[in-house]
């Protein structure tokens, strides 16, 4: 029996992708997802036979950098997955429809594939005043809740949807919240990063398509295949860290020799992502390779953990440049002054005690009674 909808492979074949390229793509994806070799077959089978994934893709408070990253995926098939092969029935940036037709498109998906469609979200949701983000007369929160109700899963693209990103940075004027704070009872995949790596996004989609379930997630809801290692632990400059070779300013000898950027405020040691492995733009480079410290864009609250070029974050309420160390030294000095003061008083007391003590051989001093 012929599928009601064309399968993914049928779709790409029409687009001029050869069987060989298709298989290459499946192999790459299996490798990215960390599957064993039998996984390749599963991916091939899934993409060969399964109908396309119905997807509704929302843009809320965001900059569209996730979409931009996605459509620049290194492998041509990833790009075609993204652009036409998952059923992007509603994607505000890429769809041709607008206005009434667009609204109809996503309502149609919700009606036609209840419990099957995936909701993908870019951007955070304002809760301070829902009017900050309205589409077609409905607030972001309403739209998301409505769409998520019958969704199979929700994919939160990027830091905005996963953790709030810059909109949620202090003082968070719009009360921006990530998806997992406003939606409950649905599997939510946080694909972190600002933006996430395109191949990571593709990997998540392929996983959903192949296995019909969400990938294994860590405690923060991120796919383990891509977010279980720190950038630091997979960084090619790591040897310089262990050797104690550090860049101290952007133009110094160390910077030229490619030393570790730890002292330049690199957030690699506190950031979980695969930048060091998959890299960006077809594996060309990633920030650290280009000589810039990691800013930790795939971690919650990375805007507030700044400044970017300072190793220890500033402490709110103490001014921009105040770190734990500065406060610590201040408290240490205060303690030393307190101790010195106390010691002076103690010595005055002690001196009085010695002068009042009986001379040797005189009567036994009776202990002071309370």
């Amino acid at each position, binding site marked *: 029996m012929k599928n009601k909808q064309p399968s993914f492979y049928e779709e790409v074949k029409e687009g001029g992708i050869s069987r060989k390229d298709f298989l290459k793509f499946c192999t790459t994806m299996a490798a990215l997802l960390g599957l064993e070799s039998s996984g390749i077959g599963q991916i091939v089978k899934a993409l060969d036979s399964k109908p396309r994934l119905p997807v509704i893709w929302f843009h809320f408070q965001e900059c569209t950098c996730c979409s931009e990253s996605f459509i620049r995926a290194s492998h041509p098939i990833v790009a075609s997955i993204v652009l036409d092969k998952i059923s992007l029935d509603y994607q505000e940036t890429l769809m041709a429809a607008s206005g009434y037709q667009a609204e109809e498109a996503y309502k149609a998906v919700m009606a036609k594939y209840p419990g099957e469609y995936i909701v993908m979200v870019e951007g955070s949701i304002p809760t301070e005043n829902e009017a900050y983000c309205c589409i077609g007369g409905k607030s972001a929160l309403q739209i998301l809740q409505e769409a998520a109700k019958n969704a199979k899963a929700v994919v939160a693209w990027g830091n905005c949807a996963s953790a709030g990103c810059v909109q949620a940075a202090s003082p968070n004027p719009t009360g921006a919240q990530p998806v997992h704070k406003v939606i409950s009872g649905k599997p939510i995949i946080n694909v972190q990063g600002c933006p996430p790596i395109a191949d990571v996004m593709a990997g998540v989609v392929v996983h959903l398509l192949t296995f019909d379930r969400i990938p294994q997630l*860590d*405690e*923060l809801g991120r796919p383990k295949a891509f977010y*279980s*290692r*720190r950038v630091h*632990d997979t960084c090619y400059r790591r*040897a*310089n*860290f*262990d*050797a*104690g*070779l*550090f860049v*101290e300013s952007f133009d110094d*000898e*160390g910077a030229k*020799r490619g030393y570790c950027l*730890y*002292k330049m405020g690199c*957030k690699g*040691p*506190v*950031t*979980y992502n695969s930048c060091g492995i998959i890299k960006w733009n077809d594996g060309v480079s990633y920030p650290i390779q280009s000589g810039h410290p990691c800013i*930790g864009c795939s*971690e*919650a*609250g*990375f805007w507030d*953990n700044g400044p970017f070029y300072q*190793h*220890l*974050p500033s402490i709110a309420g103490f001014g921009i440049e105040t770190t*734990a*160390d500065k*406060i*610590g030294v201040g*408290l*240490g000095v205060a*303690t*030393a002054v307190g*101790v010195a003061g*106390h*010691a002076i*008083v*103690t010595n005055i*007391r002690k001196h009085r005690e*010695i002068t009042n*003590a*009986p*001379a*040797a051989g005189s009567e*036994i*001093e009776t*202990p*002071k*009674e*309370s």
Partner: protein
Amino acid sequence: MRSRTLPMREVHVWELPVRLYHWINALCVTALCITGFLIGNPLAFMKGTEAYLNYWFGTVRFIHFVTAFLFFFNFIFRIYWGFVGNEFSRWYNFIPLKRCQWKEIINVIKVDVLQITNKQIDSIGHNSLASLIYFVTFLIFLLQCLTGFGMYAAMSNAFLPKLFAWVVPFLGGDMQVRQLHHILMWGFILFALVHVYLVFYHDYIERRGVTSSMIGGWKFIEEDVIERHENRSEDCPKD
């Protein structure tokens, strides 16, 4: 020459395990603070060399991690000893649940901190204020172990660190955990400053040999204090 003749007795206050705990802890905290400081803000004293020739920073981190394990087990041991040790090392000394402990805390503040009265503090082991402070340091120890092993968990497959894998998600990210770990380190440094000063202070003022008591275990205690200690009211925990 001035001298004093007090009716005093020697009391075995700190048992050997308590003393061992104390010194292991002191060494660990010193090593952890020094290496921790270096890890937080490494010295960039090497230039113009290649990574494969050096490993000093790796060694600093190695020392930090090994010492952390020692510190952790030493801490666990001290908690255990709080249930089996002598009356001065028992857990109930450290948590002021009784009225008389709070009374003593106020007295200690008046006598030793503000020095406004000259009442005698009877306690033979720790006084109640010191005990409360030690309880707070124990909480800091606990938090330091949680945050430390929490960060360590991501790079280890061992059973113990894995038990702490929930800490990072719980606190929202490695950055938050690292920041907390760093701030708590200052708690240790400030504690050490005051602790060492107070050892000198008590030795100087009370003349009970408190400094050497942590080496030999014995303290000189006035006869009348011991008498009152033995006849203390029932509602008050020992010492």
